[in-house]
């Protein structure tokens, strides 16, 4: 049954109609918040007074953010966490992917699936469970450390008293880093596994025939071939690490922990808005964070940029 002529669209409109669901959602939930946040960064706003209470203050919020001790503290925390969780992710994922690639045939999918599971599990569920595991007196992690500390040689390296993971400023950061590492190492394994499969097997055969050992093949064939994927993975880790929010938020109960040692910039700007009711400064901080992310991504790009034809 044909629609009446008035309601029919010409086929020229088809691409736009098919794109429109995404475009509309993106505009509403992506572009508008970005624009509003940029606008808000130049306003002083007492949120509970309503939208009409905004007052233009120019760069005041940016100046305040740049002078704020806690903002710099949160950037330091974020950098520490990004490096401490990001570097092991790749350093462990690459050899692991190589190992899985070369050693597992039938069990490969199961093993990769097991490593990938943390990535697809809800962050909030993970963080809540880890809060229990990290409990000082009743958590399994401290129980495990205690048991290992009974072993003579290991006792030199392990702490004698239960570690106060969640309340001690010094240990909250490693706790968060552990969870983030555990969550993303499987994702990186999958990425590297995919990249490994693109390396032709004959290069390895030629190298074996030339007398190269496994280790030499790894360093001189595998790693250079993985460079594009490493670039991709590191970029994702940089961006994700700088925007770290969920794991530290749940683990510290939304407050950033003792001495704000688990407070990442994302948590701080959220708290600025909803706990301290300063939306203007929060927006300014989010744009400053954006600048940091852009700069670091650009640096990553330069570090991994494929060299000219001479390579």
């Amino acid at each position, binding site marked *: 049954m044909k629609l009446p002529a008035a309601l029919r669209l010409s086929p020229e409109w088809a691409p736009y109609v098919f794109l429109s669901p995404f475009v509309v959602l993106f505009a509403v939930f992506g572009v508008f918040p970005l624009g509003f946040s940029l606008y808000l960064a130049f306003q*002083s*706003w*007492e*949120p*509970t*007074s*309503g*939208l009409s*209470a905004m007052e233009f203050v120019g760069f005041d919020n940016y100046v*305040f953010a740049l*002078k*704020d*001790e*806690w903002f710099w503290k949160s950037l330091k925390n974020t950098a520490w966490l990004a490096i401490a969780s990001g570097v092991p992710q790749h350093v462990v994922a690459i050899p692991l992917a190589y190992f899985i690639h070369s050693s597992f045939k039938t069990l490969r999918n199961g093993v990769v699936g097991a490593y990938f599971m943390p990535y697809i599990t809800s962050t909030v569920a993970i963080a809540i469970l880890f809060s*229990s595991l990290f*409990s*000082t*007196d*009743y958590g399994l992690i401290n129980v495990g450390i205690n048991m290992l500390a009974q072993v003579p040689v290991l006792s030199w390296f392990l702490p004698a008293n239960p570690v*106060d993971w969640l*309340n*001690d*400023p010094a240990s909250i950061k490693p706790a968060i880093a552990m969870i983030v590492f555990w969550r993303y190492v499987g994702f990186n394994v999958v990425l590297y596994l995919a990249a490994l499969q693109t390396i032709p097997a004959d290069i390895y055969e030629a190298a074996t025939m030339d007398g190269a050992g496994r280790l030499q093949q790894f360093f001189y064939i595998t790693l250079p071939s993985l460079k594009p994927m490493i670039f991709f993975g590191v970029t994702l880790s940089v961006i994700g690490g700088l925007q770290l929010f969920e794991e530290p938020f749940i683990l510290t*109960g*939304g*407050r950033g922990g*003792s*001495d*704000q040692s688990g407070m990442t910039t994302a948590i701080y700007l959220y708290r600025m808005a*909803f*706990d*301290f*009711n*300063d*939306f203007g*400064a929060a927006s300014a901080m989010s744009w400053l964070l954006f600048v940091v992310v852009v700069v670091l991504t650009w640096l990553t790009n330069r570090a991994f940029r494929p060299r000219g034809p001479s390579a």
Partner: protein
Amino acid sequence: MRERIQRGRLRRRSPWLCLSLCLFMLSVPSVQAQQSLIVAAYPAVDEIVKSALPAWKRLHPNVEVKVVSRQFTDHHTAMTTALSTSFYLPDVMALEVGYVGRFAQGGGLDDLSKPPYDIKRFESRWVPYALQQATNRKGAIVAAPTDIGPGTLLYRTDVLAKAGVSEADLTQSWEGYVATGAKIKAATGSYLMAHARDMKDILIRTGIQPGEGLYFDSQSNVLVTSPRFVRAFELARKVRQGKLDARVGAWSNEWSEGFKRGTIATQMTGAWLAGHMNNWLAPSTRGLWRAAPLPERAFAAYGGTFFAIPRATPAANKPLAWEFIQLMTLDRNVQLSAFKTQDAFPALLETYDDPFFDQPIEFLGGQVARVGWRDAARRISAVTVHKQDAFADEVINTELDKVLDRNKDIATALADAQRLLQQRAHR
């Protein structure tokens, strides 16, 4: 033929036409009479509101009350968002005392001291300090108090007996409280308190001068280097140095385990904690706890709930919203019912002669504790709130942690806090 068919069509349609016309005519008067009021709350205030609905129905049978309930933090975040955008605003919102200060500074809540509310005529009917808590710097009263949290000292009578100390040893003075804690630790191994922070929290609330807030005065000058802060920090440090605190945060697993196992001997808190302990925190310890006044005759409030009307609520709903608030806060039966079922200590003074106060509390071993709480409630003095109170809270807690964990000098810590707070005092 066509005519007959058309007439037939009309006849077939006519019963439906008739029915729909009838329904429309029936619905018109009910659309005019049926109003609804939206009340936003959090547990357990939502239960209190729901149990007051039968009383409301008797007053206004045509006005339906919808209770929108969210978890505590989510509720206040949702209220912040609703006030900032004027969308999805409830007609009445419940606010916890910690948030009233923040919301009071903006213009988002209606000033109840102005006509047609004129809340000041009811001032004498409530506990004196409660209405003060909802008053902002400009003198506007933004909310009505419904329940309060008179501060009390809950202690384990069995642990004290084992250590050979009495309640009087605890409550004589703050120094005596700490010294008794050392005896308890030595004799039983139990900690005096959950965290040294609790000590600081109560001590900074003692000795506040009139017109002063907790951290800022009425001119937004920072007060954190004043003597009450120094004393608070010194005693908290003493508690930590004597290893008298369990170093567990409130509401954590370790905290509730501490109550269950008797490793935390005392807790300074609002009277409502006894109810929580009885219901789910540590019901197995029934009969082992007692309530005492806070040491050195200190009086402070821990918690409290208020009801407010957003300014942007439709004007037609405001009279009903105000009537609802009056029902919740000024009706003796509603206040007592909330007290009996949810442990919400009433702000309404008229309830204080009810025989319920003289009844023994089973959880506290039959102690008639409510009388003491009632007495304390009347003597709590109000503390003016400041927009940056939440931030100041955090800064002071951080500095205290540094003093306790890293041996930071108290004067330096308070000076650092002063500097941080001064940057934001006027934002």
